[in-house]
Each structure stands twice: as structure tokens, then as C-alpha cells.
């Protein structure tokens, strides 16, 4: 049920939500390219970009708390990339520069994802003539992510209902076995899906 819920609570209706998805993708890409190619001497421009992105978030009616949570989830990645610069002499400037730039790039992607459904994004990719295999893979991934999430949730519940003395070590063992089981189940399902595709003339 949880995966169902997560999927259903898609982007809320807003002016940004109603914009053509192609345009949104273009703007997001533009913002990211601009940020990446920004020389350090013009770094003050990123303040304007930040203001623009926050405006989009406001118009997109994305609650700032939700936005903050999402960004926080991505922060380990950002820090993983940037923290090494602190080891350089006078590295904190570079760190700050990279930290802000990476975060703004991520913010642009998070905003795009928050105001566009995945199906719309796939339609844009198709329209852009992205490689067919890539789009098909993404489509199938999106379709079955939720099926697998539901399945893993059922397995977790079934295990939890028979776990009487939960210890941390045991939980780790359980997790590893769940991951293994999921892998086996997913590959079996993949085979059945492939059969179903072949049965309807997939070439």
C-alpha cells in the first residue's frame, strides 16, 4: 500500500505543473548548463539562479519542507564530491563554490521531478528521439519499481510478523536475505514479462 500511496501523491496542480514538460526539461537543462559553465568571477549570478529556482518552487506549490527533505537526502552525494576540496590550501572557497553550484543543479532537477510526472518525461524523451532501448528500459523500470516496492513491503511485513526478538545483527541478516530474495524474484518476474511481451509479438 505504501508504494501505491507514494506513486499516487504525484505533483500537485499548479501553474508550473501545467507548463509543457518539454519546456520544463529545456529550462532545467539550461539552468544546469549555465551553472556548470559559470566562471568563478561571475559567481554572483548564481544568486539570481537561486532566486529563480525558489520562485519556481513557490509557483509550483512545492512545500519548502518537502523540498528541504529531498535535498537533505541528496546531501551525502554533494558532500562526497565536494568535501575533498577542503584538504587543499585555501580550499574552503572552492568548497563553497562547488557546494552551492552542485546544490543548485540538484535543486533544478528536484523541481523538475516535483512538477512533472514520469510519464510526461518519457513522452518528452520519445519526442526528442532518445534511443528507443533507453526509453523502453526507463518505461519498464518505472512500471515495475512500484510492483517490486509493494512486493518487498509484503515480504518485510511477513518477516516482521514472525520476528519475536529483533536484534540489530538479526535485522542486518534479514535485510541481506530480503535483498537476495528480491533479486531472485525480480529476475523471475523479468523473465515472465519477457514471455508476455513475446506472446504479443515482441521482436
Amino acid at each position, binding site marked *: 500500500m505504501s508504494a*501505491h500511496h507514494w*506513486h*499516487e501523491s504525484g505533483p500537485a496542480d499548479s501553474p508550473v505543473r501545467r507548463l509543457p514538460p518539454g519546456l520544463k526539461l529545456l529550462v532545467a537543462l539550461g539552468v544546469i548548463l549555465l551553472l556548470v559553465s559559470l566562471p568563478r568571477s561571475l559567481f554572483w549570478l548564481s544568486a539570481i539562479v537561486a532566486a529563480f529556482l525558489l520562485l519556481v518552487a513557490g509557483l509550483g506549490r512545492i512545500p519548502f519542507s518537502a523540498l528541504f527533505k529531498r535535498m537533505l537526502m541528496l546531501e551525502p552525494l554533494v558532500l562526497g564530491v565536494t568535501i575533498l576540496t577542503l584538504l587543499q590550501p585555501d580550499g574552503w572557497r572552492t568548497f563553497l563554490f562547488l557546494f552551492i553550484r552542485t546544490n543548485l543543479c540538484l535543486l533544478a532537477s528536484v523541481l523538475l521531478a516535483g512538477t512533472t510526472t*514520469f*510519464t510526461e518525461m*518519457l513522452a518528452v524523451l520519445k519526442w526528442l528521439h532518445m534511443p528507443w532501448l533507453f526509453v523502453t528500459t526507463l*518505461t*519498464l523500470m*518505472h*512500471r*515495475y519499481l*512500484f*510492483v517490486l516496492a509493494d512486493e518487498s513491503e509484503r515480504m518485510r511485513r511477513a518477516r516482521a510478523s514472525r520476528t519475536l526478538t529483533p536484534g540489530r545483527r538479526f535485522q542486518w541478516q534479514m535485510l541481506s536475505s530480503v535483498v537476495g530474495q528480491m533479486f531472485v524474484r525480480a529476475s523471475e*518476474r523479468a523473465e*515472465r*514479462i519477457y*514471455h*508476455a*511481451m*513475446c*506472446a*504479443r*509479438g*515482441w*521482436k
Partner: protein
Amino acid sequence: MNAIEISNLKYRYHDGTEALRGVSFRVLPGECIALLGPNGSGKSTLLLHLNGILPEKLPADGAVKVYGDVVSPANIENIRCQVGLVFQDPDDQLFCPTVAEDVAFGPQQLGLKEADVSERVKKSLAQVGLEGFGHRSTHHLSHGEKRRACLAGVMACDPKILVLDEPTSDLDPRGRREFKALLRLLPATKIIATHDLELAVELCARTIILDHGQIIADGRTVELLSDEKLMLAHGLERPHILHHLHPH
């Protein structure tokens, strides 16, 4: 001409399990046949042979004939148009994001024009009672709706033979009743693997009982299902509906 003719079909899985040990039978056009048997008796494996999903490497001289043609690599596309397979788990079969896209998959693979594809989608959805469901996400349908969408996806290819693997499992009584009514209306030749013995009695004049990869019995449904000894010996039972229809 026989719609399907199977002679001495054998199949062994990679792990050595003998799933089918010499199965032979014929199906006439327009027949509706129930395929019964306990779990692991080889029903699903048999169904996968009917449109060439199994064996993995199709021989040129296979054991399955569809309307007189041996299922072989040369005519596999043609065979898959003629034999529509509805799988047991609807989530395996509905692999597209929306219902309309999924129903369109088969006709698109046939190489039809876009206008023809959407015409078929509309027709198939109407046929299974899912008008207006085209834009719905396949993940969010009820189980009964998923079953119908699967059927629509197969019907869109306009098959002469429909092969269904446990079509009423996981359906609530109303869903089961409605799905049976829907199946009854479809004119195609039907082969239905099922544990739903009432469905067998209500829809299928003929029944084939499979156990350990062999055909145990092949005959009139009412006669076979009334034979309590035979039923119990193969993990089945005499359905209650027979007590009402044929009290003695």
C-alpha cells in the same frame, strides 16, 4: 481442420524436471476446453508451448500444430497473432504505463497504422467493458480491471485461439462472475487452465486433466468432474455446482 493439434509433446526444464511427458490432444475450432490438474502438473508449461514461448529453441519439426501449421521459427509471428496468451499474473502482462498503451502494444507489433491501432484499442476496451479506462495507469487498476485489461491487450491482436492461465484466481466472487460472463461472450476457441472447477462446468464442454506432465483424462466436463475417485486421485474434487445441476 483442427485449431490445435499436439502430438507427443515432451519438455524438460533446465534443472532436469520433466514437466511434460508425451502430451497429445486435438482441439476443434470453437471448442472451449478446461485444463485441470494439481499445482505443478504442467498446465502452465503446456500453455507456453501453444504460441511458441517454450521450448526456448524452437525446432523446425515441433509437436504443436496451429491450424495445420507446425509452430516453428519460420512462422512464429503468424502463430502469435493467432494464439493469444493471457498470463496468470496481470502485473507481468501489463507492462506499459497506461491501459491504452498496453492494449496498443500487440497491434503496434503487428505493424498496423496508428489510426488502426487506436481503433483496435477502442474496440477491445469496449469488448471487455473498460471504455474510458485508456488513460488510467495500469498499476492502479483493481484486480478485476487488470484482468480485463490483459484480455483487451490480447483481444486487440484479434486471435482465433485464446489461451488463459488461471483467469479467475485472486478475483472476488463478483469479479469472477463478471469475468466468466465476459469469457462466455468471446467467440474464439478457448483453452483455460484453472483451479476454478465451477468455471470449468459453466464454460467448458470438454475437460482435459493433466497430472505429472501426462494427460490423465480427456472427455466431457460433467462426466469427468462427477467421477469423485478420479478427481480426488489428482488433487481435484467434485464441485458443488454439479450437485445442483446433476443431483445423481
